[in-house]
């Protein structure tokens, strides 16, 4: 057990005060900033479950894990600092598990801080916010926990295999997943964002189009692009919470096992 906790402690120690974490956490606090500004104009009473949730589910959850998990292995391989770890007693499996848990933990932490801050701030416009939305908030955390695990697993593998993992990760989340969402039909169950969003949508008992408000479709040449990415998908299939959660858990497990196997075979350090 010690051979796993020490690496985790080491990696967390490296990550917690890092510049990267500060930047990502601040980025996750941006919705709260927007909310505060709105509040000053007297608007934003439904910001949390509409625009706020959209920003978290469309931007934060798929993007934040990229940076943490790519840093986990890719940088160590590139800088070749991995040698210092591999020539120590803990096994390679232990390192993968530790890196996975660290990146996962950090993603949850950054996003969680953002979500919690926004929820607490929401009491400003609706003092009974927490008591009403405690279940929604809980489901949001369930979704964040499960989907960041899957994204972490994917990007961990990207970091081990690909040459430009950050760019590839961006192409995957900001390109592929968004593109698929625009195409109605059978492809949508192949995206992770479907499951992560479904958990939240079912919990709030909302329709997809409530979740993607018209607000994003602003009347300008540039604004239409945003509409395409954030509001195009209104006919998505919505699997139940149990099915979504199970899918995410299984996926995360498979990805972790795959990354362990990849790392055990990897040798060009």
């Amino acid at each position, binding site marked *: 057990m010690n051979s796993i906790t020490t690496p985790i402690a080491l990696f967390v120690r490296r990550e917690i005060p890092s510049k990267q974490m500060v930047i990502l956490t601040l*980025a996750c606090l*941006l919705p709260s900033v*927007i909310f505060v*500004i*709105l509040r000053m*104009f*007297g*608007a*934003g009473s439904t*910001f949390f479950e509409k*625009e706020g949730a*959209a*920003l978290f589910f469309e*931007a934060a959850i798929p993007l934040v894990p990229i940076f943490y998990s790519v840093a986990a292995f890719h940088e160590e391989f590139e800088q070749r600092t991995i040698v210092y770890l591999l020539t120590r007693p803990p096994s390679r499996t232990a390192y993968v598990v530790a890196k996975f848990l660290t990146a996962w933990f950090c993603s949850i932490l950054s996003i969680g801080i953002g979500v919690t801050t926004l929820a607490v701030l929401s009491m400003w416009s609706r003092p009974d916010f927490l008591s009403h939305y405690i279940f929604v908030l809980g489901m949001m955390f369930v979704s964040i926990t499960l989907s960041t695990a899957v994204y972490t697993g994917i990007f961990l593998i990207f970091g081990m295999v690909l040459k*430009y993992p*950050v*760019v590839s990760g*961006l192409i995957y989340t*900001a390109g592929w997943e968004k593109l698929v969402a625009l195409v109605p039909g059978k492809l949508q169950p192949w995206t992770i964002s479907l499951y992560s969003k479904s958990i939240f949508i079912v919990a709030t008992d909302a329709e997809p189009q409530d979740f993607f408000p018209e*607000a*994003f479709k*602003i*009347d*300008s*040449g*540039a*604004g239409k*692009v*945003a509409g395409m*990415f*954030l509001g195009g998908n209104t006919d998505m299939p919505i699997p139940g919470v149990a099915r979504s959660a199970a899918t995410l858990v299984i996926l995360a497990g498979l990805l972790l096992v795959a990354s362990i196997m990849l790392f055990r075979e990897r040798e060009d350090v």
Partner: protein
Amino acid sequence: MPIYDLTYRGWRGQRTRVPGWFPILEHSIKISFRNKMLKGAYIVGVLPSFGVCIFLYFANQQIASRRMPISREQVVDISRQLFDLPQYQIILYIQGILAMVVAALIGGAGISSDRRSNALETIFSRAVTRNQYLLGRFLGVVTLVLGATLIPGFFIWLADLLFSADEYRLEATLAYPARIAIWAVEFSVSSTLLVLAFSALIKRAWLGTAAFVVFLLVTFFFINALASAMRRASDGAWEFVRGFSFFDAQFRVQAWILGIPRTKLDTHVSLTSALIWVVALAVLSVFVLYRKVRPIEVVS
């Protein structure tokens, strides 16, 4: 028969008076065109405007074929409805975005790869100063971006002029080339500075490009999300806020340079904040470039 000495000889020839930035400018352009991917991107980037030219040709043919004897005002009106400043702006804006992609590909790797590969140490041990180096790098990218915006702009204007069935078209569009040129300079300078700043900020070659794109998209999404939510609350403020999204700001400034009246404009962005943001980003970029590119850095 003499035997010549082919070993190392010194060089005592006349040195040129060319300033240090010139070879760097020349080198950056040469390098960009040696890379097949960039060359491809550049050519693809210029292509849409040719599509527009072809469209103009057929559209004008059609108008000419069913032309009836009408007054001068009507003729001018018809051609103005077919293709005028708002259309120019949309096309050129798309061209601009494509040029920005070219800039990101060329400029994003520029300074960061010099820094990362430590080539700067050797370059700065030669007769260049930091200003000359930065100027050379900057002009190298600007020239290409300028090419990718100016060439399509002028082609469209020429096509508009030549294919138009309207004999008064030249008179009506005489000011356009100058406006297009001013816009092209403004656009390429501001986007190049931004790209180079990201390139100097982030040492990994492609991460600089990625960071630039992420920066643009994130500011765009967040500013627009903020603006759309504010829209219900206040009328003037949300337009002001939208000026802080680089894409929207560029769009607004472009409309201003091209001289499109506010009433005809299909966008709600405040010109003041757009101008502030464009200038501020440029100043910030220059600052970053100066901070990050230094011959010698003292640590601790």
